[in-house]
């Protein structure tokens, strides 16, 4: 499945909260480039989950929550990352947990806060520990640009945002779509 940065939805409280997990694996090719060994500097390879992909995972978690709240009738797109903070790296063998909560929503869009937690299998007794947070704004594309009678570009009528990959993720997590 392409460009999915969450593995499973573990909790869904419609219109309020969605929790998803992402297992960080050394089988993911990008970890070998982020960061490779630097022989000249004498540094070994240091595989770390890129923060940008953590942001994408949070955006997918929040986006599904916002889309699900209106039965996926809107094209929900990430419009703004207001704040992002992460305090430690996620390395292979760790599990990231994203807890997205809708702060405010209306016809135009939604604001979502997402907490990032990490489970380190080397220290299972610690459980999930909070390592960061992010504030996101989502836009309902049909209401802000394009669409019948409005200025701007026209977008396809079908919901190209929530494709088969998202539906498969929800189904495999045990949620009907």
């Amino acid at each position, binding site marked *: 499945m392409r460009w999915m940065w969450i593995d499973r939805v573990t909790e869904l409280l419609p219109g309020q909260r969605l929790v998803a997990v992402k297992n960080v694996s050394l089988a993911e090719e990008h970890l070998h480039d982020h960061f490779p060994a630097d022989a000249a500097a004498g540094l070994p390879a240091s595989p770390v989950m890129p923060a940008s992909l953590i942001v994408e995972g949070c955006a997918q978690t929040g986006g599904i929550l916002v889309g699900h709240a209106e039965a996926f009738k809107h094209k929900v797109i990430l*419009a*703004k990352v*207001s704040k992002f903070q992460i305090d430690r790296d996620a390395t292979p063998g760790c599990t990231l947990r994203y807890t997205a909560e809708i*702060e*405010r929503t*209306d*016809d*135009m*869009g939604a*604001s979502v806060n997402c907490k990032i937690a990490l489970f380190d299998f080397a220290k299972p007794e610690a459980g999930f520990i909070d390592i960061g947070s992010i504030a996101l*704004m989502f*836009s309902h594309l049909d209401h*802000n640009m394009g669409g019948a*009678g*409005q*200025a701007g570009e026209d977008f396809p009528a079908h919901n190209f945002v929530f494709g088969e990959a998202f539906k498969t993720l929800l189904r495999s997590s045990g949620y009907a779509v």
Partner: protein
Amino acid sequence: MTRDDIFAKVRDVLVDALAVDEEDVTAKASLVKDLRAESIDFLDIVFKLEQAFGFKISQGELFPESVAQDPRYVKDGKVTPDGMVALKARLPHVDFSSFEKDPVISKVADLFTVDTLVNFVEKKLAK
């Protein structure tokens, strides 16, 4: 709440929403020209003002929406006299005096300054 108190809270909202420095948020600063607000920021500002002041802002109440898309109100890229009446009725917190002289629709966004937001909140709290 005094106008100064409202200004201070509006300034906090803008610093948070637009990632600008406190000293840049002056009464006359334009949200778009000076503080570099983009379209999604307007929704963010609406949500954050609601949180800060504890009231609800309905769609189109603070920033104009349907007027710009309505052919009765806009002709050849300019707001018509009917459109001007509609805008003034819908947005009593906005000072249209200089805009009226050359009501080019693309300049509507320039009307929104920090003062406009303070006016809006002041009127809303007085209700």
